[in-house]
């Protein structure tokens, strides 16, 4: 397929090329991949997407990624220890999530899948809040409107439509916020995602579709979902798509910022395919040795999102040992806080079964609640 360089159609903003930075062109036949930091930690420029960050900002992104990875690892451990029923690790996707999450503004709204722990972090959701559903004490349960971060959605693809509807509402309100919908490469096959593309295009809704192509949908490689690069899906619906190096936090940040800005300024939806890799299992229930080879993982480890920013920071002298040491301490503290919080997380009250089913009440729920209470009480009596 011819590669349609949709990026070229976006408004170009003043690019601030760094002296000496290279511009990488896509290898012939390969789809273009927006990259600002090579796997080797080398800073390159892209004609359409540029970014100029202070050392502070760069260290901030690094910190976000490190803490997110640490939190994620702790959650995996907690699952192994039986404190969580399940965990869906984001290992390897930190750049895709932190880069895009940090591109959002407080008034933007985020619709995640079940794996966006890094985005949640950027939105200010307390990590321990994410663990309730994986522990089995609730189905999410944080207040989505507190951080404009919607609940995790497990049924694949549904949230793309919620995001689109929300964005239609934003446009109706005349607000200049934007909405971002996360989904995976597997999700791209769901009819709901296609319908979200249609609705968002027809209503020119301010929504960014952020597809983390981590190469796998459980055991199925992306070729089971598409035979052309996923970012190309967008153009047939009438809006641009772009593939970004999902392990390059700078590129993800730049591209997502541009897409959100585009949405904000009435230019409608855009699809970002963040090309990345799920370095761990699909979830703690999964066994990737059944379907993929270690070499693949090793190849991707060389592109590790955290390492490459570390190399760049080191090379450019943008952070010192003190910074890294402090960060290590902070990560330990975070891990401990999460561990303690989970271990002391109370089980829900039994009566919670009957709560929050309806906002305005329901006679049958009332009846069943009363029966249940009486039934429970009968045991209390017996044991008296």
């Amino acid at each position: 397929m011819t590669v349609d360089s949709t990026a070229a159609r976006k408004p170009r903003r003043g690019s601030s090329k760094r002296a000496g930075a290279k511009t990488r062109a896509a290898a012939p036949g390969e789809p273009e991949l927006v990259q600002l930091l090579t796997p080797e930690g080398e800073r390159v420029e892209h004609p359409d997407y540029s970014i100029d960050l202070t050392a502070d900002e760069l260290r901030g992104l690094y910190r976000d990624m490190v803490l997110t990875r640490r939190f994620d690892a702790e959650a995996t451990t907690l699952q192994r220890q039986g404190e969580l029923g399940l965990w869906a690790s984001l290992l390897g996707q930190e750049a895709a999530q932190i880069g895009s999450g940090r591109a959002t503004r407080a008034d933007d709204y985020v619709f995640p899948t079940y794996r966006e722990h890094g985005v949640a972090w950027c939105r200010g959701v307390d990590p321990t809040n994410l663990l309730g559903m994986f522990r089995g004490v609730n189905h999410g349960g944080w207040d989505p409107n507190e951080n404009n971060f919607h609940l995790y959605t497990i049924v694949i693809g549904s949230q793309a439509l919620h995001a689109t509807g929300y964005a239609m509402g934003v446009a109706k309100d005349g607000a200049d916020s934007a909405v971002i919908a996360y989904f995976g490469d597997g999700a791209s096959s769901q009819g709901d995602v296609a319908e979200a593309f249609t609705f968002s295009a027809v209503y020119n809704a301010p929504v960014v579709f952020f597809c983390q192509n981590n190469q796998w949908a459980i055991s199925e490689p992306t070729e089971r979902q598409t035979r052309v690069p996923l970012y190309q899906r967008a153009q047939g619906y009438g809006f641009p798509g772009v593939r970004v190096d999902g392990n390059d936090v700078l590129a993800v940040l730049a591209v997502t910022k541009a897409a959100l800005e585009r949405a904000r300024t009435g230019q409608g939806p855009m699809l970002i395919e963040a090309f990345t890799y799920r370095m761990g299992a699909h979830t703690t229930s999964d066994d990737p040795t059944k379907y993929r080879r270690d070499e693949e993982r090793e190849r991707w480890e060389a592109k590790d999102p955290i390492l490459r920013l570390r190399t760049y920071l080191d090379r450019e002298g943008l952070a010192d040992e003190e910074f890294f040491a402090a960060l290590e301490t902070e990560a330990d503290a975070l891990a401990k806080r999460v561990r303690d919080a989970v271990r002391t997380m109370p089980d829900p009250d039994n009566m919670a079964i009957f709560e929050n089913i309806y906002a305005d009440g329901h006679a049958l729920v009332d009846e069943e609640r009363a029966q249940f209470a009486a039934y429970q009480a009968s045991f209390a009596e017996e044991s008296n």
Partner: protein
Amino acid sequence: MAAEKLSVVKAINASLRTALENDPKVLVMGEDVGKLGGVFRVTEGLQKDFGEDRVIDTPLAESGIVGTAIGLALRGYRPVVEIQFDGFVFPAYDQIVTQLAKMHARALGKIKLPVVIRIPYGGAIGAVEHHSESPEALFAHVAGLKVVSPSNASDAYWMLQQAIQSDDPVIYFEPKRRYHDKSELDRSAIPAPLHAARTVRRGTDLTLVAYGPMVKTCLEAAAAAEEEGKSLEVLDLRSMSPVDFDAIQASVERTGRLVVVHEAPVFLGTGAEIAARITERCFYHLEAPVLRVGGYHAPYPPSRLEDEYLPGLDRVLDAVDRALAY
């Protein structure tokens, strides 16, 4: 305002108009609801008066319609969605049962989903396949949804007002074969609670429970039975989730016999739940088993067979006779 006489279609239209006027957050959306005013003209004139921004023609995709309505509700809107015909709601079924019904609970009550889904339903209009089904049980079984159906213009108006004002998702089934039946609407009345059944005819020998299109059929049956000296009480259920079991129980405790009538297939239809629960509640009052009259376990037939498939006066009276024979 004095009572006026108008059709169910006009009453729903008036109710939508009132809602659009009273609350800028109310939206009407669906296929062909704009210039056309919907295939049944229920939304006639609304887009003209409230604009394309509030009365929204959508792409032809029901999952998309309900899914975006959810998103709009999350943003603070109160979408009233039209599904064009009963048989076309299923592409949206996942969004309805998995998202719309469960999101309030998922958020531990922190978000509300005030979405109304209007569905013209039922048969007897001589239509082709998929245009005559009664899928209400498939929604009533699902916690998180409320399911109602008016049987006349006044309820059509008021129940829709209440559904739109409710902070819960409501599936609002419109009895399409009664769309053009006229009855009184008093806009200044204080409406009955949305989920309360209503006694529409008093009787002593047997209770008939029906909703939507079958209320009229049951009233006709009761009138016919009266000529044979049988006194039937008729309850308009109005709500299939929740069901007003107290009202049915009170009636059955007096009459001792119950027949439930709906167009939907009997097997696992609303009547099954009513029979099971009322038998439990009224075990010593029932002089006959609860009988059910409804559709068969068959796809809705071609229209030339629908008169045989649908419960009519004769089938209702047959069940009444069987119940009275115990």
